[in-house]
């Protein structure tokens, strides 16, 4: 064991080192974190959201057996006294879906939360394994009405994040799912290409398959098909497939209903990060953060997996990334 002399006292490693998994960021900026958290809490509660404190431990089965797309190797787990695998909380959405599905609440439910999730990350890559999140889940308010409530809250919140350049990007899981239907047995290839926005790969994909001309034209555009409302309008005008068109019209209707239309862009090539997304998908970016600062979406497919026929939508703020972005922006201005 390495020992160092500090002020005449020998110190052992545990006295000054923290494990690499542990978070090191939220030390200097706690007051900023609490300030943002309180502002978000204010917005959530003004819209009727109830704050919930969720358990820190969940059965691994909860995350794996519903086929949501969680990776087993990201979980911190142990075997409990029942011989069952238990994981540290990996996400808030699934436990909250369980909470609502098992409640006898037949009405709209509004939950909000603040807390950490734990995910194993690669060592020595400048990443920690603790993520501080704050967010909401809106149960049983389907369609435009629910989407709009969430988007209006996001728009209201942006001024409290203290970041200069923010983009809120909207995508559609309906659009994506219809694309997969259209390419039939080439679903995995298309998903791979879209995830990488691979222009060369898409060219090859279109050449090697014999889709109809209109679809080919659309596919070739998808890797770079993100931008403002004009891009969305143009796509609605040119796309012939009614289901694809309807998915985009939903996005336009949402946009047109927004109280505040600033910061909004659209991505036609967005791939769902969670398998249960069914409609609107949301990503928020700051030019000072290499990862999204906000993410969420409509997941009408999740509550049915708990045998509850109800819709849901939610989003969350990635507080670590927001704080890091604020710090970086400060350094630039100094």
């Amino acid at each position, binding site marked *: 064991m390495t020992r160092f002399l500090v002020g005449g006292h020998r110190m052992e490693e545990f006295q000054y080192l923290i494990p690499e998994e542990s978070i090191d960021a939220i030390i200097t900026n706690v007051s900023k974190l609490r300030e943002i958290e309180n502002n978000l809490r204010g917005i959530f509660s003004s819209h009727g959201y109830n704050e919930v404190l969720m358990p820190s431990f969940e059965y691994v089965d909860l995350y794996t057996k519903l086929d949501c797309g969680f990776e087993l190797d990201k979980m911190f787990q142990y075997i409990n006294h029942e011989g069952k695998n238990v994981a540290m909380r990996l996400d808030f959405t699934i436990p909250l879906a369980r909470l609502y599905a098992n409640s006898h609440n037949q009405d709209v439910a509004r939950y909000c939360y603040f807390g950490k999730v734990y995910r194993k990350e690669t060592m020595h890559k400048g990443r920690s394994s603790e993520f501080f999140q704050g967010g909401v889940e809106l149960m049983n308010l389907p369609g435009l009405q629910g989407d709009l409530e969430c988007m209006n809250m996001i728009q209201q919140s942006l001024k409290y994040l203290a970041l200069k350049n923010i983009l809120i990007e909207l995508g559609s899981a309906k659009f994506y799912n219809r694309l997969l239907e259209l390419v039939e047995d080439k679903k995995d290839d298309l998903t791979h290409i879209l995830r*990488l926005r691979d*222009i060369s790969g898409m060219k090859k994909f279109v050449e090697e398959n014999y889709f109809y001309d209109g679809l080919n034209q659309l596919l070739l555009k998808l890797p770079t098909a993100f931008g403002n409302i004009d891009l969305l309008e143009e796509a609605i005008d040119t796309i012939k497939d009614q289901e694809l068109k309807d998915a985009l019209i939903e996005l336009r209707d949402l946009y047109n209903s927004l109280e505040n239309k600033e910061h909004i*862009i659209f991505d036609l090539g967005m791939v769902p990060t969670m398998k249960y997304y069914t409609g609107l998908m949301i990503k928020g970016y700051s030019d000072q953060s*290499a990862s999204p600062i906000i993410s969420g979406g409509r997941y009408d497919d999740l509550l049915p997996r708990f045998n509850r026929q109800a819709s849901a939508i939610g989003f969350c703020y990635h507080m670590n990334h927001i704080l890091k972005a604020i710090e970086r922006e400060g350094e630039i201005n100094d």
Partner: protein
Amino acid sequence: MIKIAITKGRIEKQVCKLLQQAGFDMDPIINKDRELLIETKDGFSVIFGKPNDVVTFLEHGIVDIGFVGKDTLDDVDFDDYDELLDLNIGKCFFAVAAYPEYRTKDFKRRKKIASKYTNVAKKYFASKQEDVEIIKLEGSVELGPVTGISDAIVDIVETGSTLKANGLEVIEKVSDISTRLIVNKVSFKFKKAEIMNVVNKLENVIGG
């Protein structure tokens, strides 16, 4: 301003040539001495690094664009980038290589495979439903079969001359490799026009 990281060495030379053909000013890079960071007239701020470091810089948003081989992308555990272009340069392939006897030998134990690209090797044998032991070697991987530490290797094959000189041959091809242009996903949102300017001009010179 676009920030770019280029893999040092052969990729650097080939990429600079391509960018030059695409009409960008590459003189300060071609004439560089030992500088690690160089700015060009086109508003590029360029750094040079080892392949894995190019990916790390991009992952952290330190650079917007990276030029790196598919071999590196296949082996790193980070995949949240946009891989916009296959530049069709630096072409070679991953292969399993060994002495010719490997083909017919009846292994009574797990095969031992040496590679610098352990993830690639692991994924490949897993996809063939074969359980093998993987031994990491950092360079001159051919030493695996030569010294007997492994039965075969998974490595990059370009001309195959090093293999041949040591009596080894390609047993199976694993996958194609070439140099790719990758982009940080968030940078792409904020700097689309600038990044697409580079992409479109490069597309014109690489053709097809």
